[in-house]
């Protein structure tokens, strides 16, 4: 695992030597996130977001376990039990707002983490498995977040569950039966709420397990870096601890600051007022919208309004799942041997168009489906698929990339490490070292 010059774990204290011979857990930690893991020296702050995602998961699990001690997964009392947490449980308001906004923070950092991977080509060989496991984590996160949003049993919880489980009824012939089987009834009710709670408690630990695989797979080739050039020797790396533990510490501090501002001063900003109304199967809200982190996918779903061979609804569901599943094939859709977009002048332009495209999709998904927004959504959805399935394969095959630095160290010593996304960093025309 990792590089030959990685520091070996040498316990000094007899007790640690004793432990190391029997259960080398400290050795594992030392090699994974300690001084035994050499990391490229030129990582920028965008490489903090993996650790931040881990921190967000930890916060969700801790606050979630305590909330589960007070929450009652019963359709008759779920809404009131959440309000009781807010009013009567010591610091209950803190726990609940931390958990609800923690989910948003988790998605914010994961989206930055994903787009960092897209920009710097972190999905390319030899890190395909790291990327694919990341997509698995993302899918699990979406399922967990969806089921968690159902638990307070507000209007958006109920109607969101109604809409999302409705996807399955788009499957031809057996769809409706699958939907009823998943819900345990014809509509979301006691059975659905109870199983969603069970799964919402289970899936975060599955996520934690897949994260271990994600990090394991990462540690085989080691981290990518802003130049995308592979590590060539010891001069290119620094030990993870203390160098990146210190840098991640700064990231965690900033993350917690943003989190605190949201939690303490705008805890309902990202939520929907309708979820403070208890679920009522007889009263449909005027506009059913999911949480903000699903908006781009909701926009894709809604964009398919025309029946063509298949019913529009089935197209929408296929496209929505397809928009995530296609990420599994990204390492093979992108044929360019150069990883970092700093050295890919054409792809870099399309990357930023994609960022704008997804932001517009998000905006459309959160808005009412008026004809104008619908058309905007249809155009941006089309571009999303075109980007990954058509533009990227062609551009990556034809593009003339800029010359790469010979090594990370060379790039760093010439001040062109790419650790800042400035024009000097991407100019790329590196002269041979003298």
């Amino acid at each position, binding site marked *: 695992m990792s590089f030959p010059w990685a520091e070996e774990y040498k316990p000094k204290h007899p007790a640690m030597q004793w432990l190391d011979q029997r259960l080398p857990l400290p050795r594992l930690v030392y090699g994974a996130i300690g001084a035994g893991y050499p990391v490229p*020296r*030129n990582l920028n702050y965008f490489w903090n977001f993996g650790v931040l995602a881990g921190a967000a998961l930890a916060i969700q699990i801790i606050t979630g376990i305590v909330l589960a001690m007070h929450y009652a997964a019963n359709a008759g009392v779920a809404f*009131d039990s959440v*309000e009781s947490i*807010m*009013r009567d449980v010591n610091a209950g*308001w*803190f726990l609940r*707002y931390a958990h609800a906004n923690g989910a948003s923070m988790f998605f914010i950092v994961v989206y930055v983490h994903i787009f960092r991977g897209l920009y710097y080509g972190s999905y390319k060989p030899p890190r395909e498995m790291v990327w694919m496991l990341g997509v698995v984590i993302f899918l699990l996160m979406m399922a967990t977040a969806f089921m968690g949003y159902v638990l307070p049993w507000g209007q958006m919880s109920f109607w969101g569950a109604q809409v999302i489980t409705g996807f399955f009824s788009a499957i031809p012939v057996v769809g409706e039966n699958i939907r009823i089987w998943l819900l345990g009834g014809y509509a979301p009710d006691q059975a659905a709420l109870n199983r969603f709670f069970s799964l919402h408690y289970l899936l975060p630990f599955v996520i934690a397990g897949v994260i271990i695989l994600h990090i394991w797979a990462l540690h085989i080739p080691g981290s990518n870096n802003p130049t995308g050039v592979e590590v060539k020797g010891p001069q290119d790396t*620094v030990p993870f601890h*203390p*160098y990146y533990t*210190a*840098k991640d*510490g*700064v990231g*965690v*501090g*900033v993350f*917690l*600051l943003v989190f*605190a*501002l949201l*939690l*303490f*001063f705008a*805890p*309902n900003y990202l939520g929907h*007022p*309708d979820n*403070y*109304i208890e679920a009522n199967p007889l009263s449909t809200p*005027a506009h059913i919208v999911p949480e903000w982190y699903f908006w781009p996918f909701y926009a894709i779903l809604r*964009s*398919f*309004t*025309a029946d*063509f061979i298949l019913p*529009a609804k089935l*197209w929408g569901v296929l*496209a929505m799942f*397809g928009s995530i599943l296609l990420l599994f094939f990204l390492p093979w859709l992108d044929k360019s041997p150069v990883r970092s977009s700093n050295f890919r002048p054409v792809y870099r332009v399309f990357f930023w168009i994609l960022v704008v495209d997804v932001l517009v999709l998000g905006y459309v998904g959160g808005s009412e489906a*008026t*004809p*104008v927004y*619908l*058309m905007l959504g*249809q*155009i941006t*959805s*089309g571009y999303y*698929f*075109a980007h*990954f*399935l*058509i533009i990227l*394969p062609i551009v990556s095959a034809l593009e003339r990339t800029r010359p790469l630095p010979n090594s990370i160290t060379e790039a*760093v*010593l010439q001040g062109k*490490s790419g650790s800042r996304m400035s024009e000097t960093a991407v100019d790329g025309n590196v002269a041979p070292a003298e």
Partner: protein
Amino acid sequence: MVSLILRYINYIIGAAFAFVLLIALWGTASELITNPPKATAEEEFHLEPEPLALHSDGPFGTYDYRQVQRGFQVYKEVCSACHSLKQVAFRDLEKIGYSEAQVKAIAAGWQIEQPDVNKDTGEPATRPNVASDRFPLPFANDVAARAANNNAIPPDLSLMAKAREGGPAYIHSLLTGYTDPKTFTHDGKSLAKEFPDFTVPTGLHFNPYFPNLNIAMPPPLTQDGQVQYQDGTRATVDQMSKDVSAFLMWTAEPNLAKRHATGFGAVIFLLIFTGLTFGAYRNIWRGIKH
């Protein structure tokens, strides 16, 4: 043939999605041109809430307990006839400045009693409220609520300030926003002229702050002096409406002041913490080009 399809499968799938989206786009666009959506009275004449300044606004907001107490009086004397407040307990009133004795008196004197059973016969009965009780429901069940209110259920008010876009500002605007649809104008346009067919269904009341313009609730605050404030504040309709909005903000978010104070401390701590981690980071990386 199959290998050819597999080789270009990404282009085929991408083109398929793009093509179906183009058809959908064509459909949406032609629908928009041939059958443009007609403007509705709700779209043209629905008003956003007027801004309302409360002591609880902003990152340092706390509650003005005198105002919240006045708002409680409005709730007690006006709203509570129809609207429940089921998430709030009488004991919670101690948090807005009432003494324990006052809370006991308020609970004991509350008009609607708590459902109970007769200890001897087991028959349904009622008993006076105690401080630990939540505010009792004004109607025994939804059927009774509908029957008494022209087939509309008066919503619970505990969370109203968080359950509507605009929060307390919406409540204030709604309570003071009843007006005559015949003379109502907005942006220089007259409702009666733009939508001559617009009528208010029997039993409903015109209110431009309500999403569909017609609300089942009759104007609850109709005249100045409807309640007699103990602290000498003049009970104008506007004042009563502001006070009850402040009260409902408190019922929706009783821990707001504590949350703001905790948050202030947390942010100060995190600023110092982040500063220290940044110092440590600079120190550790000193002399290493990266």
